[in-house]
């Protein structure tokens, strides 16, 4: 009898832990909303999203996050242009072409990148990549969106490679056998059959990579130059939404308008990453149902 009661209590605790994930998502959203909403009422949501100037400490203060959104967007697009083709090609090579013994080694090295703290990557970028970009492209500063894109591309690589590799590997053998039996070369089979069948998984990998890039903070803050202006080209300094929060939260008055504005940015980031991950999850489900 006593055992039954103990079991019942433990099972209740386990259930509570189970639904805790939901509680936290709601709490995070709620807290961001609570701080952000007051700001939207005071300042106006349209002026916030579409405002071209981010001057939080001038008077009157300007809290337009368009330059920050553009900064995040530019760096993210730049990173994708580099990381997606390289990542997908590497995933194809690792899963289908690499000799058996090397396969796991290659995969482990790519995954190692994910283990390196972003602040370390940022620092290495600062001492190597930034001066290189400055001399190579003859620009006044190497702290540009371009440098940030390269660094972020490396950081998204493990996500894109691992998940694409999973998707490519899980394409049924019979698909390949069918194509090869019809006389297609191995490459033709890979390109026309395997790649196509693995597409939902690859799209999910890219989405998750994008999610990672948008949310990256430290490395981006260290190498993109932190200029809150609408960038004219990829060789100009930019400031992302994440970097703005990280750089400015330390100096704000707790509970003040600037503090609330930063929560507003957090809310925008939360919504964007929610959508990106939601879509990624849909594609991931699609690729697993095969």
């Amino acid at each position, binding site marked *: 009898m006593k055992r039954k009661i103990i*079991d019942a209590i433990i*099972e209740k*605790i*386990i*259930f509570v*832990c*189970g639904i805790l*994930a*939901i509680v*936290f*998502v709601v*709490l*995070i959203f709620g*807290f*961001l909303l*609570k701080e952000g909403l007051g700001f939207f009422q005071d300042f106006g949501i349209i002026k916030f999203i579409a405002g071209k100037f981010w001057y939080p400490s001038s008077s009157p203060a300007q809290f337009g996050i368009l330059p920050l959104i553009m900064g995040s967007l530019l760096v993210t697009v730049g990173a994708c242009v580099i990381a997606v083709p*390289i990542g997908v*090609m*590497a995933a*194809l*090579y690792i899963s289908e072409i*690499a000799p058996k013994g090397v396969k796991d080694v*290659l995969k482990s*090295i790519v995954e*190692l990148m994910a283990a*390196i*703290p972003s*602040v*370390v*990557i*940022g*620092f*290495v970028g*600062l*001492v*190597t990549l930034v001066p290189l970009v400055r001399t190579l492209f003859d620009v006044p500063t190497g702290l540009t969106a371009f440098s940030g894109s390269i660094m972020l591309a490396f950081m998204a*690589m493990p996500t894109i*490679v691992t998940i694409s590799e999973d998707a490519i590997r899980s394409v049924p053998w019979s698909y390949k056998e069918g194509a090869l039996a019809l006389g297609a*070369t191995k*490459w*033709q089979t890979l390109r026309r059959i395997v790649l196509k069948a693995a597409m939902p998984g690859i799209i999910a990998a890219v989405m998750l990579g994008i999610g990672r890039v*948008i*949310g990256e*903070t*430290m490395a981006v803050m*260290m190498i993109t130059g932190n200029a809150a202006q609408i960038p004219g080209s990829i060789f100009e300094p930019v400031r992302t939404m*994440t970097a703005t929060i*990280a750089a400015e*939260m*330390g100096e704000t008055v707790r*509970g003040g308008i600037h503090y609330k504005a930063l*929560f507003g940015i*957090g809310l925008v*980031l939360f919504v964007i*990453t*929610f959508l990106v*991950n*939601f879509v*990624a*999850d849909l594609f991931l489900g699609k690729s697993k149902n095969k």
Partner: protein
Amino acid sequence: MIKLSPKLSQKLSYTLLFCATILAIVPVVVVIFIIIKNGASAITWEFLTSMPKDGMRAGGILPAILGTLSIVLCAISITLPIGVCAAIYLNEYAKDNMLTRIINLAIVNLAGVPSVVYGLFGLGIFVMFLKLGVSIIAGALTLSIMELPVIITTSRGALRSVPYSFREASLSLGVSRWQTIRYIVLPNALPGILTGAILSIARISGETAPILFTAAAFYVPHLPSSVFDQVMALPYHLYIIATQIPNMPKNIIFGTALVLLMMVLTMSLIAIVARLYFRKKRKW
């Protein structure tokens, strides 16, 4: 466009894919090489065990190492039991219904929230609302929520890998569901859960953004003595000396980066080796 023979086009494409793989790997090797090459000379016993001096431009990084260790240990001891219980619920109890689907969506979403947004949340709820102040505990709680989805996912994988027949055998003997989980499923899943936990420790040791406004201090002249202390932390310290302090000696920055990198890589390596070892030892 010239039409290549299928053979030649295969050869060219394979070369291209090979080059892409090299491109994906080289940065990792380069980053690790640069840090080790430039940082190794800074690592001395004194560097690891003394306080910073001259506005961090000399001396050691002991308080930052201890600060990071205390935040991380605190965080993992909060998140591991909760995460494992959640994994048990999802793998052993949950039915395929709406609630389970919402939980799964919540986990996916939590995993995708940017680390700096966790920092904001931690500031809002732990530092301000619960009045814990900027402290080890506030930082640890923030990191523990951030790491929860990872712990749940890895633990769930470990539980799932325990064959269903084990549970059936136990249940058919009249053992209750919880007893079966406690004495049959959990012990068999433990290696997988623990390797996941070590990987998580490695990951949160390097996180900077979530502790930026919840735990980390620019400089604290004494070592941490309680969980309500503000502390120095290794990743934040690296950020500060790499970007905020003028005329910082380069070898101290590289040395700090090397210590952080080694901490993280050693733990990751232990987890990977342990995983291989347990996989080999597994009886099923």
